[in-house]
């Protein structure tokens, strides 16, 4: 059994709890508003479309939403130790992690890939092809981000901070300055997948598709495996 509906329901309600849902909605709404404004003021322009979808949607929105959904799928439960109620059950630990991952991927994709697609269509022109390319890249990135940040959630109480450091400092800042960093960037791997579809030179990755695919699979599978191991030996030190 790889999926437990009860675990999924609890996780989904935890991630989409009031405050969190508002934060998750903020960036997609912003993206779509900008897309509408751009379309009205500039008209259909592939250059601008690529800038917005690549620079804002994929580079900023997807990782941020990934951090919130990925760490939120397990971090708070471990933090306040309410996860005891999940773990004191005869449910295999990998099932719990895979279920939580599924929900985190679903939420990340819904709040990032979907708005990217919509924004792309609003921007128009050649945008529909770009929209599909970036949306697909966002969907692929959603999987890897969710798995990676979920793992961070099982390792540290400060998973959100580490997640943000990875997304903003490593990928966004160092990734734009140091070439080597780009090879180790979920964003670049996802772009490699998008590049295949986008064509026309507006979607460009610094990593070749085969390498990117392998790295995506390795990171996703490795992070998921590690998270399940962490859960198997989760300890409660008690109040003493």
């Amino acid at each position: 059994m790889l999926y437990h509906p009860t675990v999924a329901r609890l996780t989904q309600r935890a991630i989409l709890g009031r405050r969190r849902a508002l934060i998750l909605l903020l960036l997609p709404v912003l993206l779509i508003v900008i897309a509408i404004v751009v379309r009205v003021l500039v008209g259909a322009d592939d250059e601008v479309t690529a800038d917005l979808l690549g620079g804002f949607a994929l580079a900023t929105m997807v990782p941020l939403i990934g951090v919130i959904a990925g760490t939120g799928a397990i971090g708070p439960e471990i933090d306040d130790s309410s996860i005891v109620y999940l773990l004191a059950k005869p449910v295999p630990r990998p099932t719990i992690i895979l279920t939580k991952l599924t929900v985190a991927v679903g939420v990340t994709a819904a709040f990032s890939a979907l708005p990217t697609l919509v924004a792309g269509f609003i921007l128009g022109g050649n945008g529909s092809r770009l929209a599909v390319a970036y949306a697909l890249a966002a969907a692929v990135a959603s999987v890897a981000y969710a798995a990676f940040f979920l793992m961070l959630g099982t390792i540290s109480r400060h998973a959100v901070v580490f997640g943000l450091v990875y997304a903003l400092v490593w990928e966004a800042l160092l990734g734009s300055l140091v070439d080597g960093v780009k090879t180790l960037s979920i964003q670049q791997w996802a772009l490699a997948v998008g590049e295949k579809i986008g064509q026309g030179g507006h979607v460009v990755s610094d990593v070749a598709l085969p390498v990117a695919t392998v790295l995506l699979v390795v990171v996703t599978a490795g992070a998921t495996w590690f998270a399940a191991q962490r859960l198997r030996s989760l300890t409660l030190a008690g109040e003493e």
Partner: protein
Amino acid sequence: MTTIRIDSVSRWFGNVVAVNDVTMAIGPGVTGLLGPNGAGKSTLINMMAGFLSPSTGAVTLDGVRIWRNEQVYKQIGLVPEREAMYDFLTGREFVLANAELHGLGADAARKALATVEMEYAQNRRISTYSKGMRQRVKMASALVHEPDVLLLDEPFNGMDPRQRMHLMDLLRQMGAAGRTVLFSSHILEEVEQLAAHIEVIVAGRHAASGDFRKIRRLMTDRPHHYAVRSSDDRALASALIADPSTAGLELDRRDGILHIQAVDFARFTELLPRVARDHGIRLYEVSPSDESLESVFSYLVAA
């Protein structure tokens, strides 16, 4: 018949030894785990519940290792001390989720909620519950699969007397039905009322084991220290030392206090007022100077 065995178990956190070479078996019936705060009760319960690995030794359920073995939860129900639950759920949703995670359904959840008398508030969010209500919903979540073993960490904390009595009745019934029930507490009276068998833990060590009469006797037979102020400390001292129930006397002349060490509690409490009356001495103050639970427990460890 389900038995949890703790076999030469120690657990340390860095340099701190929380549990020190403890061996005990918890069998059917109600067992009380008694000890002052910080004695290692929670550490022991966490190891029995599979949420902490022993540093050395083994914790088993009917011979099967508990650590990293989620199948044991078919037989174990756990009521943790921590308050945190899925506060955004209603009581009913929470207990139902726990039932589903055991592969059970709404019937089991309904039954568990009825057992703890929480049906009246089951559609309210847990975040609105009082401490006692939370405790009962936690209890329902642990009972939902009718486990052979029930582990409860300080279950009576925050309960009012009526809820406390109700929970005690429930645990007694479960014990009488042949289930293995273990609860921790730092209050002797609580343990005495409920547990047929008591295990005492002090400073991480297994200090005593037995029924409550034995534990009570161990606790009353220890040397008792009293501070006494009277109209004639010296005369009182000389009269008391003649009796075998006193082992030591010290006259503190500066503060005007007579320190007495009594070895036979029952005899001494009868002796002191009689001697005072016979000698025409007035007792101004008689106070036990070491009645804290910690001092009682530390005596047990030394014994």
